[in-house]
């Protein structure tokens, strides 16, 4: 009896190890342990050239970031503005596309594929394609049409570079969000919108009072995905402007990368990365909490 029970226990333990063990071991080594180490390196001077030598310096890195690193705060401010603009424009466009393509239009399945297409190509390659279009393509269109919009130095001034990156981000991401919105819109029970229609509600009123509240879960997900993607934007930034002109379009992610790998200040870079983590966590958790509150059941 005792023997059987201990064998059962041993079997259960073995199963736990076989099923959960390999993934967990790798996750610990690659994500959990480095993340924990980050808290330690935040308080050290660590040059990365000798990966093993880090000197404890207490609050020095944090003091330096908060008092003497205007470039980091420029990057922070740029990333914040970028995230707000990118999230709003992407989701408005995606929701509009979702509404349009659920209306029995001709070729709507082909259009879904077209709008989604930019997502399959990586941010870095997309950035290079658009770099070419901003530098050479727009000039050609501008010459042919005479439209001032195309003759602007799109990546050359802080203001245009900002909207230049927002434009590419929107072009890349809205198709993905559109797919999620389409699924949600199709899921809205038809009888509800028909009832509203019979009661004399206009198309806009039906959308605002029936469709919109019922697709709130999709809005939560899309806002979460766009916010966290925009806030972490790196590849597009690197290939489109490289942070330029000057540091005007440098994102936090690019700033951290350069601090560590160009300036060899790994300790300082890690400290920034930890501040970055808390910012990302705070923003996304607040956003999910705020929109979740507004979700309703059909």
């Amino acid at each position, binding site marked *: 009896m005792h023997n059987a029970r201990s064998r059962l226990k041993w*079997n259960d333990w073995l*199963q*736990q190890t*076989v*099923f*959960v063990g390999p*993934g967990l071991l*790798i*996750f610990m*080594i*690659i*994500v*959990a*342990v*480095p*993340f924990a180490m*980050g808290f330690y*390196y935040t308080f050290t001077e660590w040059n990365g050239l000798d*990966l093993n030598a880090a000197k404890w310096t207490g609050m020095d890195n944090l003091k330096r970031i908060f008092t003497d690193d205007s470039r980091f705060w420029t990057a922070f401010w740029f990333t914040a503005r970028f995230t707000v603009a990118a999230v709003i424009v992407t989701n408005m466009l995606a929701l509009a596309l979702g509404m*349009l393509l659920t*209306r*029995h*239009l001709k070729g709507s399945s082909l*259009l*879904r*594929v077209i709008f*989604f297409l*930019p997502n*399959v*190509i*990586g941010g*870095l*390659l997309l950035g290079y394609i*658009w770099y*070419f*279009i901003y530098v*050479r*393509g727009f000039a*050609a269109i501008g010459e042919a049409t005479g439209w001032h919009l195309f003759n602007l130095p799109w990546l050359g001034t802080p203001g245009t570079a900002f909207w230049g990156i927002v434009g590419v981000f929107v*072009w890349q991401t809205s*198709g*993905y969000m559109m797919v999620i919105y*389409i*699924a*949600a819109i199709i*899921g809205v029970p038809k009888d509800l919108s028909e009832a509203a229609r019979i009661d004399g509600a206009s198309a806009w009123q039906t959308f605002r009072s029936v469709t919109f509240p019922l697709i709130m879960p999709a809005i939560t*997900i899309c806002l979460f995905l766009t916010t966290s993607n925009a806030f*972490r934007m790196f*590849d597009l930034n690197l*290939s489109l402007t490289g942070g330029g002109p000057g540091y005007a379009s440098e994102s936090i*992610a690019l700033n*951290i*990368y350069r601090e*560590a790998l160009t300036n060899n200040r*790994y300790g300082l870079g890690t400290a920034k*990365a930890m501040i*970055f*983590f808390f910012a990302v*966590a705070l923003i996304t*958790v607040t956003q999910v909490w705020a929109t979740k509150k507004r979700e309703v059941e059909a």
Partner: protein
Amino acid sequence: METKPRYTPLLFGLELLCFLLGLAFLMPFYFLIINAFKKLGAILLNAASLPESWGFGNFKKAWTAIDFPVVFMHSFVVTALSVGCLVVAASMTAYRLVRKPTTFNKLLFTVYVAAMIIPFQSVMLPLMRITSLFELRGHVYGIVICYIGFGISLSVFLFHGFIKSVPLEIEEAAVVDGCSPYGLYWRIVFPLLKPISVTVIILNVLWIWNDYLLPVLVINDAFTTIPLAVQKFFGQYLRKWDLAMASLTLSTLPVVVFFLFLQKYIIEGITAGSVKG
């Protein structure tokens, strides 16, 4: 069954609007492809016009300049191995977490979900120390292990949501018939997970195939993937637009073909992954 609305001028107007938007979305691909066929002089003269002839000279040069067959194979091997391991490891984990909800397993699931908000930048510098300590740099298996570590959170999350809705009866019947726990998973449960496995495969393929930063940090020159090769090309030959456009066309082609063949599953998979997850 609902009836199709009548064809009205409004509907026609919306159709027209959608097609114009679709054309605007395709515009970058137009620029990319036509300029891949042009000579540098023609690009500088007018980047919007069609090429005078459709020769493949640029592609030939770009093929050797970025060492396309080699970097393609590298990208392919890294992506296939990482995604294969991720599907097996994550589905096994999620299966156990759903069917044995001990305190430890519940906590573990929470940890996996919470880890999804950690930005890569917050992990990457200590990770460089870890990868050199465990001698993971410059090897295929090194980067594959990294991708498993970073991908497992989301994949477990997706499998977890799906497995919760799989009925237990089939598994109980198999146990009565004398199936071992491992055979049960592999022969009964895993095939049932096919829909969500497709989603997990697609999301991870798109991410890993296109990833740039992790390969820069852990593989460098020893094992160059496509994004790295293109980046290096742009660094060296800035403004050699003819070769640049040809190499970009070559590099984007595989994943675009992958998408066009599987677009139905990809779009369905993303829907399933985001709404039900």
